[in-house]
Every structure is written in C-alpha cells, then in structure tokens.
C-alpha cells in the first residue's frame, strides 16, 4: 500500500517535471509587436491630435458654448448639460493613454536613438496633450503621468504648473526639431501645412498663453509662429477613404445622423441676417459662410457634409488654423493697446474666409467700426466663435465669462470645466474627487 502511494507520487512528480519542454516558449504573442519603430509611434501621436481637435471633445465643447446643438438621442441630454463623469472616460483616455504617454515613449526612443527631430516632435506633442488636458480639466496628472511602473497612481499637479511645463516642452521641442517642414519632410503623413514644426509649437504656445491671460506672451508667440498665409494652417488631412474622412462627416453623415446640428444654435443665429445677434453690415455678409457651414433641410439646420461643404468627407480640419492665430494676435494686441494690429489681424482672419470660399463678403474694418476697446475685443471673440470650432472657442467663452453672449441653454454662466472621468475616480488613489461643472479651474479663478 505504502509502496503504491510512493510510486504514484514519484510518478506524478517525475512526469510533470519532465514535461516543461512541451509547453516552452509558447507564451510569445504572435499577433503583436513588443517593440516598434520611432517613426510609427511618433506618427501615432500626431494622428491622435484629432481626438482633441476634431472628435468628441470638440463636439462637446462646441455644444456647450452653443456653436452646435445636440438634436438627437444622447446628444440632447448632453447639450442640456445632463453630463456624468463617464462621459469623459473616452476623451481622457485619448489624451493620456493615446496621446501623452505615446509622446513620452517617442521622447524616450528618440533620446536613445539620438534623433533630435523625433525628439522635438514628441516634445511638442507631449506639450500639446498636457496643456489641452489642463485647460479642460484643471489640475491634472503630469509629473507622474505616463510612467505606470514607477507611478501606477499619478498625482494631480496644479493647472498653471502643468500649462507652464507644457509651454516649456513646446519651446524645447521647437529648439530640437527646428524649422523642419511638417509636410513633406517624411516625419508624418497626417498633417498638411506649409508651416514648420517650430511654427506649430509657437502657435500652440500662443493658444495656451492666451488662455492664462498672458496677452503679451501670447502676442509674441503668435507673431513668432509666423502664420502669414492661409497655407500656414496646420490641418489634419482627410480623404474619402474609409476612416480617413472628416470626423464631423463620419459622425453626422455616417454614424450618428441628426445628433449634432446647428438648429437654433448661437453660431447659426450670428451668421444669419435676420436674427438679433446677426453681424450683417455693409462690410460683413455671412450668408456664404453660413451656407459653407450648414444647410437647412426643413428638419434640421445640418452640418454641411455635402461635397465642398466645410464638413465634407475630404475637407481637412485645422489642428491650429490661420484664423485662430490671427485672432490670437488680434485679441492680444487689442488687450495690450495695439489697436491697429488688432484690427489688421481681425481683417486677416475675415479675409481668410473669402479666400477659402472664393467670395468677397468681408470688407476691411477700421477703427470707426468699433465703439471702444471692448467692442473691438468682442468683435474679435465673435469672429473666433464663428471661425474656430471646439475647444479654443470653449476656453474663450469661459475665460471671458461669455463676453459675446452665446446661448447657455438655461445656465447663467458657462460650464467651467469638464469632469474628471469615472475611470480615474475608480482606479487612481490620488484622484482628487469629483469637482462640479460650475467650479472654475485655477486659471479662471
């Protein structure tokens, strides 16, 4: 009996220990790479900018300042500020997982490979994601972000500090990549522009300095960006290939028809010639721009996703556009006392649309067209409201406490921030707790 058991036990041990060879080396994923070239990951960080500039965050931001209207399904609730933290799960992951952390990998790889161009681009991208996240959410992870091994639960750094660090990264990145052309230099296939990387870095820097009300700094950076021509716009390329189409087109024409429209929005009322908020004068005729952006099919005033429309399948969409940079110059100049520069830049921005649409709708404005400095600034902000879709405009409305008077759908003041996502609430021990939509972020406090 004893022998039997002993033998059995011995047999079990010998049998199993001898069989390692059978199972060896099978646990290597044949379906995925465990390392990748720097080019491909850097190209991803550039592609991922679309999640900030053109996708869900841009639509939400646009709805909440009434550029757009949520007309169907979940978008009705969203537009009415029926917002829960889980609504921000995907955008937050896009910023951090899809953006910032991949840019950090790019920085590490480019540093190892001693590749200054890729290093610079990765730094600019990291700066971009960090600053955009801070502007939307306030205090956000930065110093401990994107380092899961060291910091599985990153702490939240102060908003101002993150924006400063982001601007420092833009500066470093610009220095590293220099005046390398964005398009055609083989560094990416996502963006179309005549600008170079350092121009993009400066344009972004101007956007962020404006947000923190450093108008002198914003003016310098915007002028350093040298966006002298419409072709300087840094655009995300779209074609009619499946999943290369303009995202507004994909959303409205393919995926979520009726969800996002202009019906009754402040933007469409501004561009109308019959409403109280119309801009129409003998120098300003918005009817073509209105048709460029929208069409009314009786049911809704829809995004113009038709061929040739602003939201057509193959219409590129700006990451940072010429009008935005001109209007940053205009506002910063107006606020720092250079009225002449302010007006000329405003005119540049207006004329841009004539160029794009092949029209002659916008005559040059001059100082007689404005009652005072506030009137000028409001005109600049309003022009930006009808020129730049998404987050930059949202931040303007918050920063200026809705100086232009856009519709707030029943609210007294603009939404101050986006909510921290449920994913951070659920998994980060350093999560600072839910901060409500009405609580200003530090830069607006």
């Amino acid at each position, binding site marked *: 009996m004893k022998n039997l058991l002993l033998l059995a036990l011995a047999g079990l041990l010998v049998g199993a220990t001898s069989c390692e060879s059978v199972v060896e080396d099978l646990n290597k994923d044949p379906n995925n790479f465990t390392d990748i070239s720097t080019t491909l990951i850097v190209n991803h960080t550039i592609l991922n900018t679309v999640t900030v500039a053109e996708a869900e965050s841009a639509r939400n931001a646009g709805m909440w300042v009434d550029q757009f209207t949520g007309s169907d399904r979940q978008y009705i609730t969203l537009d009415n500020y029926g917002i829960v933290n889980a609504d921000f799960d995907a955008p937050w992951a896009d910023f951090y997982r899809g953006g910032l952390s991949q840019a950090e990998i790019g920085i590490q790889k480019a540093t190892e490979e001693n590749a200054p161009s890729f290093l610079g681009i990765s730094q600019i991208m990291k700066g971009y994601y960090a600053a955009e996240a801070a502007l939307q959410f306030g205090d956000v992870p930065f110093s401990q972000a994107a380092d899961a091994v060291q910091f599985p639960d990153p702490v939240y750094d102060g908003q101002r500090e993150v924006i400063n660090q982001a601007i420092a990264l833009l500066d470093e990145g610009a220095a590293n990549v220099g005046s390398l052309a964005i398009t055609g230099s083989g560094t990416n296939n996502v963006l179309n522009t005549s600008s170079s990387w350092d121009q993009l870095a400066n344009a972004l820097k101007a956007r962020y300095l404006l947000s923190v009300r450093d108008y002198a700094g914003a003016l310098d950076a915007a002028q350093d960006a040298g966006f002298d021509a419409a072709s300087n716009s840094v655009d995300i390329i779209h074609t009619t290939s499946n999943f290369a189409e303009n995202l507004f087109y994909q*959303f409205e024409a393919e995926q979520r028809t009726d969800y996002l429209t202009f019906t009754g929005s402040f933007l469409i009322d501004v561009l109308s010639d019959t409403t109280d908020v119309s801009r129409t004068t003998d120098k300003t005729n918005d009817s073509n721009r209105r048709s460029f952006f929208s069409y009314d099919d009786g049911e809704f005033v829809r995004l113009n996703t038709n061929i040739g429309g602003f939201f057509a399948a193959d219409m590129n969409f700006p990451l940072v556009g010429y009008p935005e940079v001109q209007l940053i110059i205009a506002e910063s100049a107006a606020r720092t006392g250079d009225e002449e520069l302010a007006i000329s830049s405003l005119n540049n921005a207006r004329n841009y649309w004539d160029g794009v649409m092949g029209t002659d709708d916008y005559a040059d404005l001059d100082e007689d067209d404005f009652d005072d400095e506030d009137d000028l600034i409001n005109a600049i902000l309003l022009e930006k409201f009808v020129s730049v879709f998404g987050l930059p405009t949202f931040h303007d409305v918050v920063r200026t406490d809705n100086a232009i008077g856009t519709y707030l759908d029943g609210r007294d003041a603009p939404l101050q921030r986006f909510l921290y996502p449920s994913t951070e609430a659920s998994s980060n021990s350093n999560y600072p707790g839910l901060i409500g939509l009405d609580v200003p972020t530090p830069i607006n406090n």
Partner: protein
Amino acid sequence: MKRLSLVIAMVLFAVGYAAAQQAISGTVTSEDGEPLIGASVLVEGATTGTVTDFDGMFNVTVPAGGEKLIISYTGFTTQEVEIMAGKTNYEIMLSEGVAIDEVVVTAIGIERKKDEDLSSATLIETDLLERSGETGVIQGLAGKTSGVNIVRNSGDPGAGAYIQIRGQNTILGDASPLIILDGVPISNSSVNNNTLAGVVQQSRLNDINPDDIESITVLKGASAAAVYGTGAANGVLVIKTKRGKTGGKRFSVSAGITYGIDEINREYEKQGEFGQGLPDIYAGVPYDQFGVFVAGNSLSWGDRISDRSGTDEVDQSGGFFTGDQTGSTYFPIITKGDNNVYNDSNRDQVFQNGQTVDVNFGVNFRGENSNTYFSFSRLDQEGIIKGNSDYTRSTVRINQDFNIIDNLNIRINTSYSGVESNRIQTGSNLAGLYLGYLRTSPDFDNTDYSGTYTDANGLNRPGHRGYRNGLGTARPTYNNPGWTINVQENPTEVDRFVVAPEINWSILPNLTATVRYGLDYYTDERRTVFPINSGGDFGQGQLSRDEITEKTQNLFLILNGNSQISDNLGLNYTFGYNLYDNEYQRLSGTSANLLYNSPEQEFILDNATAPNQDNDQFLSRNRKNGVFGVLNATIAQNLLVELSGRLERTAAIQDELFFFPSASVGYKLIDDATKGLSFAKVRASYGEVGIEPGLYQNRNVFVASTAGSEGWGDYLDGANYGGTFSRGAIQGNPDLTIETVKEIELGADFRFLSNRIGLGITYYDRTTEDGILPLEAPPSSGFTTVYSNAAEISNTGIELDAYYNIITKNDMSWKIFGNFTTNENKVEKLPGVSRYILDGFASASSAVIEGQPFGALYGGVWLRDDAGEFVFEDDNNGFPTNAPEQDVIGDPNADWRGGLGTEFTVKGLSFSVLFETAQGQDMWNGTQGVLNYFGIAPETANITVASQDLVTYFGQSIPAGTTFRGNEVDFGAGPVAATAEWYLDNGGGFGSVDEQFVQDASWTRLREATISYALPQSLIGKTGLSNVSIGVTGRNLVFWSEFEGADPETNLTGASKARGLHYFTNPGTRSVLFNLKFGF
C-alpha cells in the same frame, strides 16, 4: 521517454500486486442467449469489479468474504448472484428491464454507481434530452438538474447557449464548463458571440447531433473535476455517445423524423396613435395638437394619425422612388394624409412561423469481433425571421469497437458535422433587424425596401427605402427591416471532425491500460455582405470574411486497476498523463466602400480600392500537460474515500508546476431496499481547480492604431496615414499566476419507501482566489488596464434534486421529480478599482463590483439624497435629475431556480411536463427605454387631460383641462406633465438614467410538455418493424414574466459573462414538435 518508463513501471507494479488475488470467471448473456459485452460485474461491498469482454466473459477477483456479484447492464435488470464456495464459473442471464441502478460517469470517463459516487454529479439520459426537442445538445438540459443554468442567446436558429454551473467564478477565464466527449475534451468556443452588434453566432456544442448521445453527466463540483486541473473550473459535462449494442439482434435500425414549428414568444408593443415627426414643443404647435408630421424624422412624436385627411398630398414635380417589391412609386410628401397604421404589416414583413425538419437514422451492427454504431442526421431549420435566417446541420457518426484479441480492445469514435447557416444582424446596430423594425413609425409602410430612385433629371440609381428616408435617395439611417433580412447576407459554414481512437489493454482482470487520443478540428467560415446603401457605416457597402480554424488535440495514458487489500479495504486506482494542445487561428479580410454596386452581390474582396481593403489575423497555440491520479477506497463496506490530484504545467506559466488536490469522504448509513429509509449516504469533499492566465498577457504590445471617438464610430485609421502604432492600452504582467478555485461540498443522498422516493441535497462553498482581470488603471498612467491577480469571488449554494415514483408497475408508471438551486454569488475583493465592466454600453453595462454579485448591472441613476429620495433641482421643474456618477442598478443573477416535472406512462402512452422557474433576477430593458425616446412605446402615446395646471420638463405650462400627449406623473414634487421633452431627455433610453429601465426578469415557463404513444406490438408485428412511436412536444409553450416586450431568457451579449442586458436582441421562441420514431 521518462513518461513511458513511468507507465511501464506502474503497470509492472500493479501486475505483481494484483496477481496475488483469487479470481472467478463466468459469462453474461441476455435471455435469448446473446452474450452481453461490457456488462458490469462488481463484487458487492467492494470496489472490485470488471466488465465482460466480447464473448460476454468476465474474470473478477473476489476477496475473502465476498458474498455477491452484482451484474448490471444498460437496459437490463440488475442481478445479484450469490458467490458459492468453490464455484469459480458462473453463467448469468439478465432480463431486459427498466429499473437500472443510477450511474454517473466520472471526469475521466469511468462509469460508476451513483450510490458510490461522492460528488453531486448527475447523469441525464438520452431520452430526456431527446424529449426536449431542442436542436442543440445543451439547451435540452435546461431545467433537468439542479445547479445548471442554461440560457439561449436568442431564438435565432442554431443560436448558442450560455451554460453556467454553480455561478460565475472567473472574469477572464472561460465561462463555460469543460466538455468531455467520449473521454476527450472538445471545443465549445463561441467565437465573437458578443452581439452588442453583429449576428448571434452558434455555439460549437450545437454541432453534436443530440440523437447520438447516450447520456450527459454533469460534474458540478471542484472535487469531481480536479483531475482536469486548469481545465475544469466551471464544472464538466461528460457526454457519452451511443455505441454498437453488444447484445440483442445483430443488426438493428432506429430512425426518427421530427417536424417543428417555432413562433415568437413575446414581442414589444408599438403604439398606433401618433405618426412620424416632431412633438409639440419642437414642432412649435400647442400641446393639444400633439405634434407635426416630418418625413424622414427618426421620432414618432408627430401628429395624431386619426386626425389626418386620408390621402397624402405629394410633390410629383421632382424625384421619386419606385419600389421593387410592389412597384409603387413614392413622391415627396407635402402634407401627410394617409391615416393607415402599418404596425401589423410591418411586423408580418419580418416575422413568420419558423419550421424545423429533423431526420435521423441510426444503425447498430454486431459483427464477429466488432460492433458498430452508425448514424446520420439532417436538420433543416427556418427561423422565425423571414429571409436569410436558417440553419442546416448534417452529421455522420461511426463508433466502432474491435476486439483484437481477448484482452485488447480498440474503439474509434469518428464524427463529422457540417453546418450551413444564414444569420441576421441584431443588437445595437443601425443595420440590424430589431432596431430598424421597432423604431419604424407606425404610419410608415416598410413593404418596399429596395428599388430605384429617379431624380429630377430622370437619372436612375438604386436605393434603399426606410422610414428615415422614404424616397430611398440615399441609405436611410436605419435599415428597413426588409433590407436587413432579405438583402444583407450573413452566411456561415462550419465543417467539423472529431476523431478519437482508443486502445484498451486488460493487462490483468483487474488492471487496464488505456491510450486515448482525441482530435477535434473545425473550420468556421463567416461572411458578411452589406450591400451598398445599407445603414450605418455601410452606406458604401462592405464585405467581410472571417475564417476560424481550431484544432484541439488530447493524449491520455491511463492505468486503471483495483484490488481488494483485505476484507475491509478495497481499492480502485487510476493514474494517467494528459497532454492538451490547442491551435487557433482566425484570418479576416474586409473590403469597404465597394466600387461596383453589383445586383448579384458577388463576394469579391477586390471590389474596393486598396486603402479600403483590410486584413487581420489572430493566432494562438496553447498547450498544457499534467499527470493525475485518483484513488478510491472502500473501507468496511460503508466508508468510501476518494483522493485525487493533478500536477500540471501550462504554456502560460511555463516555469511553475501547479497541483490541484481533492479529497472526498462518504459514509453509507443504510442501504437496504426493504426499509422505509432504504438508502442514506452522507458525503463531504474538498477540491481545488484552477484557471490559467490567458496567453500573451505577460507583456506590453504595440498595436496598429486608430484615433478619434471610437465609441461613437468616428475615427481615423492610421493605416490611411502611412501607418501608426501605439503601445496597447493593457499593461502586460509577467508575474501573473493561476486563479485557484477552492470548494467545499457537503451532501447527502436518501431514498425512501423501497427506493421509490429519492432526495439528494448538496451544499457548496466555492471561492476563486487570485482572479485575473484587466484591472482598470488610471489612463494618466499610460494604460487603461493592467492584468492582475486581484479578484476574489465566492459562490455558495444549495442544490436539491428529488423524485417520487408514485406508481411503478409494468404497464403503468407515474413519477414526479423536481430540482431546486440557490446560489449566492459575491465579488468579495476587487482592490484598487471600483468596477470592472464585462460588457455593455457606456450607459448600462454588466460589471464586476466589489461587494456585489458577479455581473451586476451598472449604469446611470437618479440624483438622490441620503434618505434615497429624489433631489429636485430648481431648474428641473419638478422632474428628478441624474446623479453625476453611475451606480449599481440591478442583479442579473437569479435568487433561486427550480424545475418541477412529471412523467406518466400507461401502456404505450406517455405524458410528461416540465416547468422551470428562475426568480429574483433583473434585466436592463434598454429596448424599452429607447422606444420611450422614439415615442413608439404605448406608454408614450397616452393622451392625458391635465387634472390641474401642470408644468413640463422645459417649464412650459399646460393649463388644467388641456389635452396633451404624455402622462401626468408625480415624481415626488407634485404632478408634472411628462411630455416628449421628458422622454427625449432623462425619461427615455438615451438619457443618463438607466435605473428606470431595469425590470424584474423573473420567469416561470412550461419548458416542455410531451405526449407520445408507442404503437403496440399487435399493430406493428406484421410490418417487420420492432417499434413505432409518435409524439408531440411543446417547448416554452407558456411563460410568465413581468419583463416587458421580450423573453428575458435572451441576452444581448450572447454567451459572454455579461448578463442581463436587452437591447434590440432578436426575440426568443416557443415551439411545437411532432415526431415519429421507428426501428427494425
């Protein structure tokens, strides 16, 4: 080599040991003198025993003091034979009968008496399965034994089923039990059976012809399954197929034909009062005018249909659409006048009575030294959905036994299944059936779905007409259901072979060596055709093809023996080695934005530009091997002890060895058929099984990337931009270890009144430790999830099975039987994360949450104060609002389940019914919520007269006495008018509050009701037939449930672990089946 020498050593040892025993021999025959092959010969009170060989002969070792031989054989009355001193040869004749001892089949394929078994295993006989009339093997088990939960994914033909034994206990591991077919594990994959969108796929278990099955034993506990180590954490189904008979006629045939009719068992009601269009507030009309017709609008919040003039006023000056189906022309509507309601015709466009024809044919042949079972079956099923919904299965099986020499037996089981099926798009899917059908406005006639649009210039183009584009100028946003079922194609084709040869060598009368190999190989080819103009993202058309191949191989080396050590100690031992090898590959090709809109819809993947062609593959190769042993001891006749274990090494963790032990003990208190309490046994066991980590979870990977709002469907594919890769969202973990499931089981089996009443009761407590999950990580860390051994999940429950043979006479019998299961499932630990979402939507999902039952429903809730009362915010006009954070909203697990049935037989006539119930579970009725939004739900079509001055959600006034569409509701801050404003916001399914759509999904159903009649011999004697029977079976004929609009026994996410979600899931069915069986 080492393994082989080990086996030889064990054999030699056992031979030497066993040779010391005293043997007797004999033959076993049937009454007509035919030898019975494989009859069980046991020495009473000992585990010593053997089976008869090909000539019906046996040799068995009898310990000193052994008094009786017990001879049993399926289909014959068990006989006890006294052992007489000095007599060594016995001629035993068995008579055919029905009263056989209950047996079960152990995890390694050995049959044993239930009385000797120490687990809660139950065996279900073939006739019970066949009676269910289900086309899938597993579905037929529903309600027949405790502890097993079987849910069909939907009523689609051939749809898979979810099988759960004793509650869910793993998050990432396989959810379904291990399937052992004739001693070899086979695949039960449900690849991509998640039907958030797409089609409901089949379960691979449906490939088996139910008529081939002899019995299924359900091993519920960990101790019974421990010999499979990491394979068996969810229990085991041991399936035995029929074999050639070793007794009776040399040649016999049995055949049957079944004709079945299926129909939908519950549907959503649609309102027929109001037409397509916008409601009062959005249309700018007063509340008492309800709404305005708007062509193409998604909503049915328009005008009252009965208020209309009777005929449409149309614009015939421009473009128009000509329908293919009726030839009618459709012009733009200027004023809607048509006051017909098309709900009925729109329904009949889609649904029909399904039909099933099942033919099967089996042959038994007994040769000189061999016996054969051959069968063929063919099943043709047309679904309850018209158009491209069907399922055809052909199977062939040959089970062959050869006796090479007296003590060497070879058996080969081979089977082939060929399945061809057409599936229908379902779920959250703009090109899916139920979504388009249910949302269609009541005043829109869906009959013409395809046709030609002629524009103002007279140019023609093919079009797709649906309620959101009545002119078919471009695709309608949602498919016309006619398009979904008739134009879109989703064919699948499965070819599957299972080959399992086995050699048994009886080294000694009480020692057998077995070498068993199993090969299970299938290809599953799936195609999807979205022709140009299909809904959603498929406006430009899309073709895709998936080819799935899976090969599972198993090798077993088993040594099984027994010996009687002394009067009071008998041993039965099994040792073995098992190698498991699984190869899986999936190749996919897709073409989108088709170039040529061919009327033939050929499947040509080149029909797209290069950037619109995509291919993809997934490969995996897994292996594990282990040695196992089972030792059974019978001590002093009544004390039974079993020890078993498996030592295993897996590919996922190649450097470590894992040991899975189990120990069971049982005591027979009484075993005397003459007593009032005829039999009593108590048993206790402890067992451990495991779940290995999935392959490739050990390191970070880089994946081809996309960017945008993938959740909404708009994004850029990096492949269009020169290629982009990003580090994957899941952080790999090289330190993962296996999940361990530990279970204690206590039970007792009783029989009363000469075994007429039986009762089995089992209590279990099982805990999964180190449960692996992709733990949610802060995305700011760079990953959204990280694989971790973090979860602890417990399941405790009680299972009860009972029967009462009220009448047992030769020509009459009446039996009632029942079972009861209660399982309490709890996620004990989920550190560092508030919830893990298994599946579902961002709004409502099925999730794992600490302190909650597994799969808890999770979603948006109302804003409440600490007392749980609604908080009414100032600007909400007396309506509640949503809380900013989601919470638990329901439990999809039943509190208890039960089955109750009866069988009555008199002469050739048999009746049986089986009721089944599941109580206390919740289900999220997402469909209902969305129908509220669209103004389709009857509740939203109520016409209410304001009893007092009311305020709407937007703060509009409705004076007392005013008629409005909607409902007067008091949420707690006084009555308010719930109009479209409310239903289009948080009062509807697209709002942020899912809590309100969670419904009680308890159900009770008449699972089966059968009448059958076996024609008496006097009638068929001259025909040459040996038996003829006819029968009618009703399945799911009636069910009772509070759940609105659908059978809660369906699941949006198919056989996945996410439970309790309903969102435009294709409906369930009830069926009536007529069958004719005969044999000769």
